[in-house]
């Protein structure tokens, strides 16, 4: 039985980054995605933490030279889907979404922002993931396709569906 020795820095790097640096550099992107996917602070914190721990566990599968942020976002979206499945199995009902907690710095009563956030929550998981990766993380459709393990055309298709739904939902409001 071969065990990893603790305290060996080379074994604890992903894409050349030690754990602390990895978290510092990519936490915001991962957290933003899982926060807007789960619409729930507690789940988002758990999901983001789990994402980084999974990334460390699977560090050998990361290919140096590829997009580290896209790799982490893929783990994050899969972790969210796992949680969703677990909750569905446990309750046999759709995952309940808590109302999002407003950011302390956000302008109080920013109705337009809340309408947009609410409309995004109505999208299905894949459409929401594609839309968030494109608008918040500015990933290309090629990178989104890599995150979702699908083709670029399909990523575009999901984006189109998401945009169509949002335009309809927000008609006359934004």
């Amino acid at each position: 039985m071969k065990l990893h020795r603790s305290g060996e820095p080379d074994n604890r790097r992903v894409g050349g980054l030690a754990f602390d640096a990895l978290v510092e550099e990519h936490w915001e992107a991962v957290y933003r995605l899982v926060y807007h996917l789960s619409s729930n602070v507690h789940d988002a914190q758990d999901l983001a933490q789990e994402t980084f721990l999974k990334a460390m566990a699977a560090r050998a599968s990361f290919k140096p030279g590829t997009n580290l942020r896209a790799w982490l976002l893929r783990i994050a979206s899969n972790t969210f889907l796992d949680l969703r499945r677990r909750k569905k199995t446990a309750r046999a009902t759709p995952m309940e979404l808590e109302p999002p907690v407003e950011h302390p710095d956000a302008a109080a009563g920013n109705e337009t922002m809340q309408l947009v956030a609410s409309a995004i929550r109505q999208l299905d998981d894949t459409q929401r993931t594609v839309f968030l990766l494109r608008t918040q993380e500015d990933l290309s459709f090629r990178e989104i396709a890599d995150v979702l393990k699908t083709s670029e055309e399909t990523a575009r298709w999901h984006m189109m569906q998401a945009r169509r739904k949002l335009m309809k939902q927000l008609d006359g409001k934004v």
Partner: protein
Amino acid sequence: MNCQAAQEAILLSDDPARVAEQVDSDLARHLAGCAACQSFAARLARIESLAGSLPTAGSAQGKQALLDRARSEPTILNPRRRWYIGRPLASAIAAVLLLGIGLSAWIWNGFRQQNQPEAAVVEQLIDFDLALADDQAAPQQREQYYDTQAPRLRSAVQNARLSDEDRRLATNLLEHGSFLSHSNDPVERAERFCDLSDLLVARMGSAAAAGDEMAVQRFGGHYGRVQKGLGANLQRLKALAVVNPEANKQRIERLERLAKRQQDAENRLRKLAEKSPARAKRVLQRMIENAERQGRKPLVDPNFDPTAR
């Protein structure tokens, strides 16, 4: 380009805020003279800009909690250690269970293949065609998949004890696979997908006539999967047809012919259900209900004029 095609193109664009910048495009020319579509693009761009700046809460606390935990419990960064040392019993039980499941599956598969060799070959070929008909796979992936699987399947067809009818079906499925592996025309691929659907309806008809309810159920399952894949591909094609004005008219005519073929297949299933034994009838009726549910939406928007520019 009319307004509907322009708005579809905006929805498919990389960035709605920059669509007007593509100077030589039909879309940019349309936008230059259409206030409604300019407003549509601007509104979408505003929604995306707002979405891009949506605030989050609880981020800093979550990050700090993770960093603190990693410092106080360094083993969380090395989960394999916890797994092997901390849970040997769970590992052993899981290994025994997996071995048991694997053995059962192997024995059951062997039993099925021994008893239904023709069904196993045909099922593998249907899976093969379905994988190749998937429009979401890249062309190179499809070709690679075909090259690795086709020789084995061809040999399986040659060696299997097949009835004349099953051999014809298997040969057809192999030919479909060959076509699907190198064709990049999505409409043509959908047409071949529809051929596969027709083949399965015919095969169900033969099985129902022979009173083979198990076979009706089996082919019914395949038919359902093919219909689901076909429905998704057709919806995608519809959208692409709308944003490609050059090829629209011919493409939409072909899509309408496909819709008609699906309707014909549904009618054949209805007739088949009427004269089938009770269990097979139930299976067929379920399939018809599914097909009806999927067919509610019109394939092509009746108000869309493909010749308008």
